[in-house]
């Protein structure tokens, strides 16, 4: 546990740095946690919002019950999220298949190359490094090329898999809630005493 002195020092230090102050710095820092945009609400784009509304209406049917509509919206939203993750997966594989990797080629791909560059520089020679071309090491034939592309983006695919599982779980929960609500509504109308 931190002592009183340590706590006071931590507080003093925290006051010294409270993040970026300029507008540009704040804007940049606001995107620090941004990775792939898959957690962004789908209603934020017009095309998705329209597709979402159609799907909600199809799931909910003719009802005007706001709770049913809300649950149908949750199902539709999760379903579109699922499709988005699947699109992202395919896009990653296609990119790796076309360029050999996701990140732009680096001037130095190994520590040995960096050492070689500085050794030559010390001797007064400047060797301009050529960026390595990852696509050159890709197999030219299918299905080997696609398989190699999948292999190269496996860690990213695994991360996306987590989002996919979450979206599917959200949809399943929403479906359960929806038929729970429908069952209650049916019961309600059936046991209404005659006026």
């Amino acid at each position, binding site marked *: 546990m931190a002592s009183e002195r340590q706590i006071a020092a931590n507080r003093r230090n925290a006051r010294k740095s409270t993040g970026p102050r300029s507008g540009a710095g704040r804007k940049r820092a606001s995107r620090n946690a941004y990775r792939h945009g898959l957690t962004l609400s789908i209603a934020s784009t017009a095309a998705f919002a329209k597709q979402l509304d159609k799907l909600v209406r199809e*799931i909910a049917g003719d009802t005007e019950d706001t709770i049913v509509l809300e649950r149908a919206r949750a199902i539709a939203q999760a379903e579109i999220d699922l499709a988005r993750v699947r699109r992202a997966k395919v896009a990653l594989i296609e990119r790796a298949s076309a360029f050999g990797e996701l990140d732009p080629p680096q001037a130095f791909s190994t520590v040995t190359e960096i050492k070689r560059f500085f050794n030559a520089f010390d001797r007064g020679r400047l060797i301009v490094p050529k960026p390595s071309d990852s696509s050159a090491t890709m197999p030219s034939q299918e299905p080997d090329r696609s398989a190699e592309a999948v*292999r190269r983006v496996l860690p990213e695919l695994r991360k996306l898999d987590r989002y996919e599982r979450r979206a599917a779980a959200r949809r399943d929960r929403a479906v359960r809630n929806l038929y729970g609500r429908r069952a209650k509504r049916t019961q309600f109308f059936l046991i209404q005493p005659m006026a």
Partner: protein
Amino acid sequence: MRRRNELTLLPKLPLLITESADEFDALRDAFEREIKPRGIIEQMYVHDVSAIVWEILRLRRCKVVIINSAFRSALEDLLVQLLKGPGQYDNEVEDEAEALAHAWFTDQEAKKQVSETLSRFDLDESAIEAEAIRRSSSDLELLDRMLTSLETRRNKAFGCVAEYRASLAHQLRESSDRIIAGKGVLRLEDPTSNRPTAA
């Protein structure tokens, strides 16, 4: 007709440019014939199961290709180990191993030579496969985890369809029981007569 309308509402499954849309449609149609989905929710689950199975097939294909593409370097490493005599260094046999490994894929004579070298140490061609698997084990492990996750989700989706149907059946059974028993059911009355007209 209704089914087609429901399908157009569901987001399309994106495929790789090397994959066939017709093959995917055939797979989904096969599931539809088996499950016979009714309504958009069941249609959604069938679509999900088809997408999951499609991805499982894609990853399984990759698995085989990954192992196959590690074969050459696996054979090279194995040959270096087997050809190296006592007191010899790896680099003394590396060229021979590389040439032999290269020829193994096309030349029957080279294949025979490799088999003989392997049998001298009580090994056979499965040793090459084992080395190829060992070399790609980190990728295969990731692939396996993804395959397991997909298989779990596929089974869950089947479970969800069954649960949804059971719930619907239960709901309908309860409603019909109440109607048959005539207990507490809302009745519509004809204002001109004393007889109830509908239940």
